[in-house]
């Protein structure tokens, strides 16, 4: 999306005044809402049916007006672990954003190029999630049922229906909430004393009787460590001239138009304890280092594509603070959502229920 320089100027100046175009401050998130359809909440035992069909856990991240709408489904199955990691479970992520607009198949002549772009975008999100979130998502050791034989595989499928900026943040939220709402039935492997039998089942895989599945859904548990699943905070770094020098500052949870203005973006994944799990910078250009410029006497020449170390640490610190707020926001939101939207998990319908009467 291209925006005009004057719009960008307005957005940057607004952010400089700590008053963004939609009235937020720099480090404020939008009011995300989550419907996890969690069936482990003690209040509603009827919610079991409202989880996405055929998935073990699901979540939906939603902004008012459906500017962002992301679905996440977690499907668990038992697989044989890979030989080099026999004592760890598997988490696989796939992101589908083909429905998220920007693709005009009917009229556009270069639909092929757009599709390619879309694939690229999807794979970027997927690989970033894999790097920033997946390694810390769950306790992999706890997903093992029988070492070397059976482990849980959690397939996390994320569908981006619509997204207005900060797609990675929203996907990470969806993934975290999806994993937290996942219920794994209690499965125990029957350890047979017969050594030969165990060997045979390992080789042939035709073992029918060595798993006991607890049928009672109430005894199913979320995967351990899902509470510690990190969230991603993307900071967009804007630069504006102020008092004859260029000032950099970052904003969180940028809208699409704000994202376009950013000279660089830094994705930081932070876990609930405030620990940084990973940092990634997006977008090559744009940080003009004042000191370097003065040294070389050239305004924004060449060196602008890298980021000074002290700035990065500053940015990451900011991200840590923002993440703390985000965790609070999500927890309170979820709490509120659970109590209010028990019967219909579909967004804010309940708020308008009594307000709109067709006359």
């Amino acid at each position, binding site marked *: *999306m*291209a*925006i*005009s*320089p*004057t*719009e960008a*100027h*307005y957005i940057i*100046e*607004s952010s400089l*005044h700590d*008053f*963004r*175009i*939609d*009235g*937020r*401050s720099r480090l*404020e998130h*939008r*009011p995300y*809402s989550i419907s996890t359809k969690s069936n482990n909440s003690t209040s509603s035992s009827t919610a079991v049916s409202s989880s996405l069909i055929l998935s073990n856990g699901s979540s939906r991240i939603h902004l*008012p*007006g459906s500017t962002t709408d992301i679905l996440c489904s977690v499907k668990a199955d038992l697989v044989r672990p890979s030989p080099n990691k026999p004592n760890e479970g598997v988490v696989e992520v796939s992101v589908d954003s083909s429905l*998220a*607009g*920007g693709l*005009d198949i*009917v*009229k*556009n002549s270069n639909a092929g190029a757009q599709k390619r772009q879309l694939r690229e975008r999807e794979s970027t999100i997927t690989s970033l999630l894999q790097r920033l979130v997946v390694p810390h998502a769950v306790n992999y050791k706890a997903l093992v049922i029988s070492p070397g034989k059976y482990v849980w595989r959690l397939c996390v499928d994320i569908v981006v229906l*619509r997204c*207005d900026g900060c797609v990675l943040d929203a996907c990470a939220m969806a993934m975290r909430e999806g994993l937290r709402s996942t219920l794994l039935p209690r499965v125990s492997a029957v350890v047979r004393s017969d050594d030969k039998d165990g060997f045979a089942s390992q080789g042939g895989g035709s073992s029918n009787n060595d798993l006991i599945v607890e049928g009672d859904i109430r005894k199913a548990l979320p995967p351990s460590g899902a509470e510690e699943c990190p969230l991603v905070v993307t900071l967009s770094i804007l630069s504006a001239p102020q008092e004859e020098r260029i000032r950099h500052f970052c904003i969180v949870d940028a809208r*699409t*138009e704000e994202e376009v203005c950013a000279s660089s973006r830094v994705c930081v994944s932070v876990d609930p304890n405030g620990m940084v799990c990973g940092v990634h910078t997006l977008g090559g250009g744009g940080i003009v280092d004042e000191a370097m410029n003065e040294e070389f006497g050239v305004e924004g020449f060449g060196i602008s594509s890298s980021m000074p170390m002290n700035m990065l640490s500053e940015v990451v610190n900011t991200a840590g603070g923002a993440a703390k707020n985000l965790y609070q926001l999500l927890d309170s939101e979820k709490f509120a959502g659970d109590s209010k939207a028990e019967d219909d998990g579909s967004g*804010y319908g309940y*708020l*308008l229920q009594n*307000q*709109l009467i067709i006359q």
Partner: protein
Amino acid sequence: MESIIHNFVLPGQVLATSNSETDGGFLRGHGTYIEIVQDKESDNRHATKAWGNDQSNYNVVMQTDGDDASNQEDDNDTLKTGPQRLIASLAGTVQRVNKLISVIPTSSSVYTGQVGDLIIGRIIGVGGSRWKVSLTCSHNGSTREGQLPLSGVNLPGGVQRIRTSEDVLAMRSLYKEGDLVSCEVQNVQRDGTLILHTRSLRYGKLENGVLTTVPPGLVGRRKNHFCTIEGKVFEKEGANDMQIDDEEGGDVDVYLGLNGGIWIQRKIPSEWENTQGMDRDSRVPLAETLQKLRQRHASTRVSTLMRERIARVRNAVECLRLVQYQICPESIESVVRASLMADVRVGHMICPEWVVQLTEGTRQ
């Protein structure tokens, strides 16, 4: 009111039926489609051929694809003679002219232009002595384009002459890709393409403000689409407005584009016009004065208070969009007032709980 309710149809509703004897009871108009009612026997035959285990009694004409010639003939026969039903494909009111039955949609999600409409569009292409203007300014969703020919703009300085090849080369100095423009529909071509123009001094490039988009159906046609929300609306009742001087707290301009683009900026203060008015004595044409005003507006920084007001108006529009309410200056003003009364932070206005509360007065 009665008649509107009676004539209102929903998609899938049957408008008319005709049996084979009285052939041609109706003609299909816009917003409708024909379904052929088939008797059980032939239906079974068709169903097994076309869809396998489809149990429906009706066969939609458009979807019937016979695989051999005889089947095709059958279809044609039924098309001519079989009993038919006319079904609405849109939500709207039924219009009937003799045999022709059509449905006029109440509000279309796609903007269809009319001559004279104000449009807030984004330039997406320059070339062929015309600018391509995207009518859906939002970044997701399909793009619809209008065309702004070079002959449809005012040349800088307001001179009137035939456009030369130099003008064609200098097109980017007027509007570049990505620029937002306000323009008017000059003509709707037969295929629905819109020809735009910016020849009035009111239209032109939009700078130093905020764009927000709403579904086109929410912006109704009205006398004036350039609206102003006065500064006093933003002042809290009872609060002493001594602190706010005129420079700080001005009016906010809202341009309601019929294609769903809404542009919010500060109103150019009247003092500026007065200072520019000095030039008017020296017989500078009005066009140039306005241009200077625009330039000054674009280059002058917007104060923080003004930014707050603009953001408040923007979020008021957003609130109205969330509850699907008509967007007009009155409704915006009422939401703004409500937000000030409730003492909401601007950033919190789009939280769903607040949206309901703030639009309560408007919706009734």
